[in-house]
């Protein structure tokens, strides 16, 4: 792996006695795209503000290129931020906003002009130099905020839900553009979002956050396919969590009894003893329907169509719920209908229950 740019070491922070960050650690490599994923109030923004220097941690250190910057003011850190509300200076033109940081550094005039033109080209806003922020659309403001933050070529760029205020179509487009921009510039991105799809699309690594802690840090594939806990499984993969009891474990597979029926799951590295309670994460698209007598019997409770997927809510014999999903509109299922469900053994993952 390439060299480490940013290190967070056991950061703790409380506001008015309420702990917001409970000892988080993270290493970010040069040019890496790391997403902090979590619901609102989990401490994502506070983490970002601590990296930027806008907030001081109560404990722990922040290292930038190996140098301790925990007590360094924000203006002396080689880190820039794209704020959630863009925070463009309303009294300055687009060009003045972008060149702000260069002017503070007293760069020569020609260099500033070149850098501004380049930054505007990068975000496809050439020709907007003399507009005021008030005359721009949300998407354009977003681009100016990005141009302003990257014009200085910081080592790390922090982005606080930068696409939160944009509509879905523009969001998708900007996601791709941002990712391309990041690869082009080779800057380390620390990106905040509460949208798991966005995180999975863009990131090299995802840090799933909950209650001021990182629950799991890993590549999108790791977090999606091998969730460590039930929270990660639900939040990232919208997975079902099934409770059961271990029957046997051998050859990388574990057999468990769920809702009175024997089922199989991937065991991974974990040791399982018979009789031990187990929780299995199972994503809805991995639930298969089977002929009667070959899986867990279930009753269709309701059907709904959303986002190109048909979601089928099922009830298992022990009263627990299971959601299955299918592409397109499947007409053949009706509420009250009895069927059986099963899945490929490797589809179910044992997780630690944390929610």
């Amino acid at each position, binding site marked *: 792996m390439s060299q480490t740019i940013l290190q967070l070491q056991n950061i703790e922070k409380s506001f008015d006695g309420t702990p917001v960050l409970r000892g988080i650690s993270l290493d970010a490599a040069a040019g890496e795209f790391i997403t902090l994923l979590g619901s609102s109030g989990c401490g994502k923004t506070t983490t970002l503000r601590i990296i930027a220097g*806008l907030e001081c941690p109560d404990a722990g250190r922040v290292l930038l290129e190996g140098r301790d910057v925990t007590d360094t*003011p924000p203006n002396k850190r080689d880190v820039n931020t794209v704020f959630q509300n863009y*925070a463009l200076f309303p009294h300055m033109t687009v060009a003045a906003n972008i060149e*702000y940081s260069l002017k503070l550094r007293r760069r020569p005039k020609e260099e500033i002009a070149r850098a501004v033109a380049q930054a505007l080209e990068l975000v496809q806003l050439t020709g907007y130099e003399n507009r005021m922020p008030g005359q721009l659309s949300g998407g354009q403001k977003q681009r100016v905020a990005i141009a302003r933050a990257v014009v200085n070529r910081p080592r790390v760029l922090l982005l606080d839900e930068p696409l939160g205020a944009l509509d879905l179509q523009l969001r998708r487009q900007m996601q791709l553009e941002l990712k391309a921009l990041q690869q082009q510039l080779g800057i380390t991105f620390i990106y905040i979002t509460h949208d798991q799809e966005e995180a999975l699309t863009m990131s090299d690594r995802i840090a799933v956050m909950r209650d001021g802690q990182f629950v799991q840090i890993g590549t999108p594939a790791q977090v999606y396919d091998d969730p460590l806990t039930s929270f990660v499984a639900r939040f990232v993969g919208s997975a079902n969590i099934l409770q059961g009891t271990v029957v046997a474990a051998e050859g990388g597979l574990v057999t468990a009894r769920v809702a009175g029926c024997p089922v199989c799951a991937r065991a991974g590295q974990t040791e399982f003893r018979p009789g031990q309670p187990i929780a299995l994460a199972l994503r809805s698209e991995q639930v298969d329907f089977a002929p009667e007598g070959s899986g867990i019997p279930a009753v269709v409770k309701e059907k709904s169509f959303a986002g190109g997927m048909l979601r089928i809510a099922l009830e298992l014999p022990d009263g627990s719920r299971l959601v299955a999903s299918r592409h397109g509109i499947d007409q053949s299922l009706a509420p009250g209908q009895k069927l059986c469900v099963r899945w490929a053994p490797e589809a179910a993952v044992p997780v630690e229950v944390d929610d």
Partner: protein
Amino acid sequence: MPNRKNTRRTPLTSRWMWLTLVPLYLFTLVLVLGPLVYMLVLSFETRADMWGVIPQFTLANYQNIFQPVYLNTFVQSLKLALLCTGLILLIGYPFGYFMARLSPRGKKFMTAALMIPFWTNSLIRLYGWIIVLRSGGTLDKVLMALHLTQRPLKLLYTYPAVVVGMVYALLQFMILAVYSSAEKMDWSLVEAARDLGASPAQAFFTVTLKLTMPGLLSGVILTFIPSMGLFFIADILGGNKVVLVGSLIQDQLLQAHNWPFAAALSVVLMLLTSLMIGLYKRVTHTTRLEGLL
């Protein structure tokens, strides 16, 4: 038209509703515009020998202003107004700025603390300053008790006393104007400036000061204009030593009974202040004075 009923009920579009505005227009015409026109006309008329005016056109009243003694009064007034406005700016801007950064409770408390003294008549509060500033008054007693001074300072009826009175009387306008500007400011802009490499001072001068400029300028207008005309402060705290345009007008009207000259002085004063407001509009591109909602 489904909206018809609603449209008809809208007060201002109703046929006879304009009648309710008549008192307002009458009030403005009779009590605001009328006296102004009367004053303008008066300033071009001739003073009668004993009492009143003769309706005879003259420019003498305006020429009169250019006599050194009167011109000097204008200069003195301008100087005092500038000094007071400067002092008020130095005290009021930081005051309003920090007030905007208080908690909601703190803001309420400070607003109340600023407003409550104004429930008392301003003349009575001025007499309070006499008690503080007079020879052997409160200030002298405190300073002498602390052994900072040996004998009374005799501050009352001096120029500094007038300045203190003016600053005291007008400070709240600056504070509230700056406060209302700073209160609306998006503080994340300051964080953005810091993030982009600005020191606290650089962030203040490039962002905060620029964005609170409308409040600052309106505070300047709101203090500079009255300080040109607050004659009673100069009279009460300055004795006869400090003569301002305001006191000159009052003297000409009530003592010398030279109404046309008093009117001409008033017209010039009004022109000066209108000029200031015009400048303000030019600079800020607004017609609204911040802090006067």
